[in-house]
């Protein structure tokens, strides 16, 4: 559409495009430099990390950093803990959210509005406002220093129910009616019709939950104080504060902490962008 407007002034348009590309390249550089610097530093000796002018590709890449990091801290344990929590939370979130959203979107029952109001009323309450009593409650049940606490914290969000409900409402009710006449139970309709149809919404919820659980910091920081239970984020932070001058190793561990999210993000990027965009349009 920009092209049409300026088609009568071709040179003007060309200058405009050059400016746009230059600005974009500068912004992209600003966005990427921290990641490139991280990658570059992860392959250097500590003494070479801060040399200036910066050597982006080290002459002798120190791959040993990526070997040493696994023995310097129990990184494998941290990665395993994060992977376990992320997978369990994501699966639970997908199941409970889509299950509840089906009833809210496609069934009539007593107390529907009241129950839904229960979810809506909590949108305005930030987790940080009730994290302390939540911790006291969990501690009273001896759930502090367990992975179960983190799972309970993350697996039942109102957000998931909203997201799935919004999608299910877009599915024509005639589909469900026809299935009921054919003798499918409500559970059958959910499993055989709604779930397969809602792959885009499920993908959006998957990547949102995956990213937020993998990257979660404050929750695990409060609940998990034993080394063998810590997640990658808490473990990485602990390593940074204990060995603050091990620049190369810190950067190698950071790269490892980034990879799973990078992979999931690139694979499901489309759904993530759609999800963000739809939350914006709703508001």
């Amino acid at each position, binding site marked *: 559409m920009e092209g049409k407007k300026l088609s009568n002034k071709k040179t003007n348009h060309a200058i405009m495009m050059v400016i746009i590309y230059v600005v974009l390249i500068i912004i992209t550089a600003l966005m990427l430099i921290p990641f490139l610097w991280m990658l570059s530093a992860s392959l250097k000796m500590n003494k070479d990390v801060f040399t200036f002018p910066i050597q982006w590709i080290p002459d002798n890449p120190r791959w040993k950093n990526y070997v040493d990091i696994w023995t310097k801290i129990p990184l494998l344990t941290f990665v395993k803990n994060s992977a376990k929590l992320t997978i369990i939370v994501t699966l639970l979130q997908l199941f409970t959210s889509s299950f509840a959203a089906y009833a809210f979107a496609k069934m*009539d029952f007593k107390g529907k509005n009241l129950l839904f109001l229960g979810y809506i009323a909590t949108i305005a309450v930030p987790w940080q*406002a009730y994290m302390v009593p939540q911790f*006291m409650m969990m501690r009273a049940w001896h759930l502090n220093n367990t992975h179960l606490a983190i799972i309970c914290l993350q697996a039942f969000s109102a957000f998931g129910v909203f997201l799935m409900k919004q999608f299910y409402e877009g599915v024509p009710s005639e589909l469900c009616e026809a299935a009921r006449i054919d003798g499918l139970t409500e559970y059958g309709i959910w499993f055989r019709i709604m779930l397969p149809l809602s792959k885009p919404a499920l993908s959006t919820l998957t990547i949102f939950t995956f990213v937020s659980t993998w990257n979660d910091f404050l929750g695990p920081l409060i609940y998990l104080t034993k080394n063998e239970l810590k997640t990658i984020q808490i473990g990485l932070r602990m390593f940074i504060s204990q060995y603050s001058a091990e620049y190369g190793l810190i950067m190698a561990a950071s790269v490892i902490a980034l990879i799973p999210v990078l992979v999931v993000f690139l694979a499901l990027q489309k759904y993530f962008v759609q999800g963000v965009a739809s939350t914006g349009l709703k508001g």
Partner: protein
Amino acid sequence: MTAPAKSAPGKAPAKQSGRALRNNLTAYSFIAPNFIGFCVFTLVPMVFAVALSFCSWDGAHDIEFIGLKNFLDLAGDQTFKTAFINTIVYCLGTVPLTLVCSLGLAMLLNQKIKFRNFFRTVSFFPYVASLVAVAAVWNMIFSPSMGLVNMVLASLGVENLPRWAAGKETAMITVILFSVWKNMGYYMVIYLAGLQGTNPSLEEAAALDGANKWHIFRHITLPQLRPTTFFVTITLTIASFKVYDQMYMITQGGPGDATITLVYDIYNIAFVNTPKYGYASAVAMVLFAMVLIITLIQFKGSSNDN
């Protein structure tokens, strides 16, 4: 605590047919797994938090009701005041800056250009990247003595190099810059979605009438984006009130208490110093009130739009 889910069928009128009852029960069985978890782990602690803010409790002794004392104590608490002001300063810094950057980026990436998806992906990646990892790089790049940023500034002939996270005046700015860098991609996506909803024929008509690019943007595109801008402002404001992790990783709240925020204060009162859970909850209620006010403005704003 799961009463709403269970008591509702009991209230059903007696003449209700068995089929409707069975239908209700099926619906509750769909909702139960999420709702029970949600009640136990979210609703109950929320109510507990409100109650606790009127009590004194150290976790070891009995909970004692003390009325408004926690809130009265807040008025004379210097750390709380600093945390409150810092939170507002952080909000006033990040919200406009993120808004302008994300809108500008969205306008650029809404053009027909090559590698558009690549540029979008790159701008969005900091948002999903692990905060611990990117904060670690940020600290090294902004290191006052050897970091890349100060080295570049020094080679450009700048004297009195900023001390970034270590300087009392610059610490907050460093965190704000970091937050803008990390989050602008997210709001850019929201703006891109908003731009899809604008009417291109209006802009084309204005261009034919000889309006320049800036005027088209200022008087035609921007007014159409009003609902998006409103939503982004609200979301950014609420997010900025809840800030904690960035400070913890870049400045540790310092130097001194230059970057202590409300959530930082809550965390310190409850988990670092001698625990005062009631008092921590009182600070939490202030945070809640701030978020609630913004949410009410949002409800009012979006109902006006409709």
